[in-house]
């Protein structure tokens, strides 16, 4: 796999020693970046689950996990320990090879696609210029599509190899659903590509920089000649189905199929499917951010103070935390008098970090990328707390009779307007 850093290595080979140095540097930086991204991704996976439980609990007027650590913050750690310590039981009636292969396939395909996502612009760290993001293939979009489309085998195989009617039904439902929703999703994704005229995810984000009239961002959902609002919604709805989330979670519908395709899995096998679902969610939201919401570009220009949004948000959070802890503590929660002000001071310190001029060009883009992705993830959880599950025929009718024609109409309209507007240079 070639990355931009790799091609730089070849052009810089004037003298042997300098090329060796550059190659070493490239290797080292790539290693560091991979470590950071892998660590951040796995932590996010664990804590996304905590956030989901908390948000769902608050939607349902409950408190959610509260026992392990302050406000249940150590709950993911406890869950990981529980899942790894459990006995990995293999039922006697399964097809052992495929039974073990399936969770491995699912989690690998789910985790791989993160390497294509650009998190920020190219920045200079200690005099070495590098892109914030792991790799940049010139077919980045297609790579992510290919990897996610292979991911369906994990679920289908798990359902089949479990040798159990409920599992098989779950696996069949999921493969049928994923094939069906891949169509509107892919067609919806083509429309912004027509506007931008490139397949590399980094170029796609770069093309969305800048502002109309100095204030409206040039994101795909606002971009002329045809704003991609419809295809954004189609993409989002289809990605709910692709990640098997409510309201399209029929492959694991509890009231019909026990637990669907992962009924027979325990311990790490189950953990793999769990991780794959959340990793797919993160990939889907990252892709929507990159393709439609302008990646790391701020929603309004820096002249109007978009650089100070993270500072203000963190300071507001700090003020609320300190107020809740010191001025107006809840009766019966003694620990809050200490933990909330400390967390508040931490947030205030983080706000100050965003003001350091050296770190600003790195942190501000990453903040906007994380903010957009995080908001979409919140929408995923919000929908789960709001909507009931579809019936299976409703699910299929919805994609084939509504989403698919609508996405084709949208694509035709975009193509026509792009052709009328003339070719981009």
């Amino acid at each position, binding site marked *: *796999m*070639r990355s931009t850093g790799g091609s730089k290595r070849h052009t810089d080979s004037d003298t042997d020693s300098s090329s060796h140095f550059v190659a070493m540097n490239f290797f080292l930086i790539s290693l560091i970046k991979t470590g950071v991204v892998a660590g951040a991704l796995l932590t996010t996976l664990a804590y996304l689950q905590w956030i989901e439980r908390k948000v769902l609990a608050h939607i349902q007027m409950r408190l959610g996990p509260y026992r392990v650590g302050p406000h249940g913050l150590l709950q993911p750690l406890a869950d990981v320990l529980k899942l790894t310590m459990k006995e990995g039981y293999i039922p006697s009636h399964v097809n052992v090879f*495929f039974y073990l292969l399936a969770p491995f396939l699912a989690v690998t395909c789910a985790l791989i696609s993160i390497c294509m996502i650009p998190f920020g612009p190219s920045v200079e760290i200690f005099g070495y210029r590098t892109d914030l993001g792991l790799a940049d*293939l*010139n*077919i980045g979009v*297609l*790579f992510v*599509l*290919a*990897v996610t*489309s*292979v991911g*369906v*085998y994990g679920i*289908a*195989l798990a*359902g*089949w190899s479990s040798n159990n009617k409920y599992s*098989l039904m779950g*696996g*069949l439902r999921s*493969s*049928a659903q*994923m*094939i069906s929703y*891949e169509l509107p999703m892919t067609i919806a994704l083509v429309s912004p590509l027509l506007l931008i005229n490139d*397949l590399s995810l980094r170029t796609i984000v770069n093309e969305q920089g800048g502002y109309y009239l100095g204030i409206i961002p040039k994101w795909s959902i606002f971009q002329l000649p045809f704003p991609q609002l419809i295809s954004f919604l189609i993409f989002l709805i289809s990605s709910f189905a692709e990640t098997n989330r409510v309201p399209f979670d029929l492959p694991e519908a509890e009231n019909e199929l026990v637990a669907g395709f992962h009924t027979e899995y325990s311990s790490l096998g189950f953990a793999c499917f769990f991780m794959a679902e959340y990793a797919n969610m993160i990939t889907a939201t990252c892709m929507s951010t990159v393709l439609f919401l302008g990646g790391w570009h701020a929603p309004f220009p820096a002249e109007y103070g978009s650089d100070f949004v993270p500072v203000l948000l963190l300071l507001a959070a700090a003020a609320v935390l300190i107020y809740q802890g010191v001025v107006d503590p809840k009766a019966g929660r003694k620990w809050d008098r200490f933990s909330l002000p400390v967390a508040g001071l931490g947030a205030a310190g983080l706000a100050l970090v965003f003001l350091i001029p050296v770190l600003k060009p790195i942190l501000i883009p990453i903040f906007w990328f994380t903010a957009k992705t995080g908001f979409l993830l919140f929408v995923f959880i919000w929908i789960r707390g709001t909507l009931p599950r579809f019936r299976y025929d409703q699910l299929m009718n919805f994609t084939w009779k509504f989403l698919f024609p609508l996405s084709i109409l949208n694509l035709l309209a975009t193509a026509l307007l792009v052709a009328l507007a003339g070719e981009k240079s």
Partner: protein
Amino acid sequence: MELPVFLLFAFISIACGVSLVVQRHPIASALSLIGVMGSIAVLYLLLGAEFIAAVQLIVYAGAIMVLFIFVIMLLNAGAESPMGKSWPSRLFGIPLLTVFLALLAYLIQTYAPSLPNVRFGAMTTGAGELGRSLFTKYLLPFEVTSVLVLIAILGAVVLARKEID
């Protein structure tokens, strides 16, 4: 750097191809075929044809083979038991295979005696050029193919339709 990767994936694709034929269970065969597709996609990637590699994965591994697996799972096809070999296959099997391979080698020698070696990363045709040539130079074949696919879809719909009286 490229040569070991090439050798590895060439070996994997051949191993998967052999396993495709040897496996008794249809699902195992289908998965071996996916392995072949995947390793061939890696070989395309090594040659520099990134677009073709991605399309190979999306179309074959991601769409067609999912349908295959779906149908196999739906029919719940079990492992096949080997039947005894018939006497013509015992008698002519190995000689015919030898003749076929010899013929293949002879044809390659006659029609392509000295093709230049393919270099890694040489085929740098991107998605843009491919699309442009599809819609200019090869427009007629492209459109004819799409009509053909449409007819196939119509045929499938007509065959699968329930009779409503």
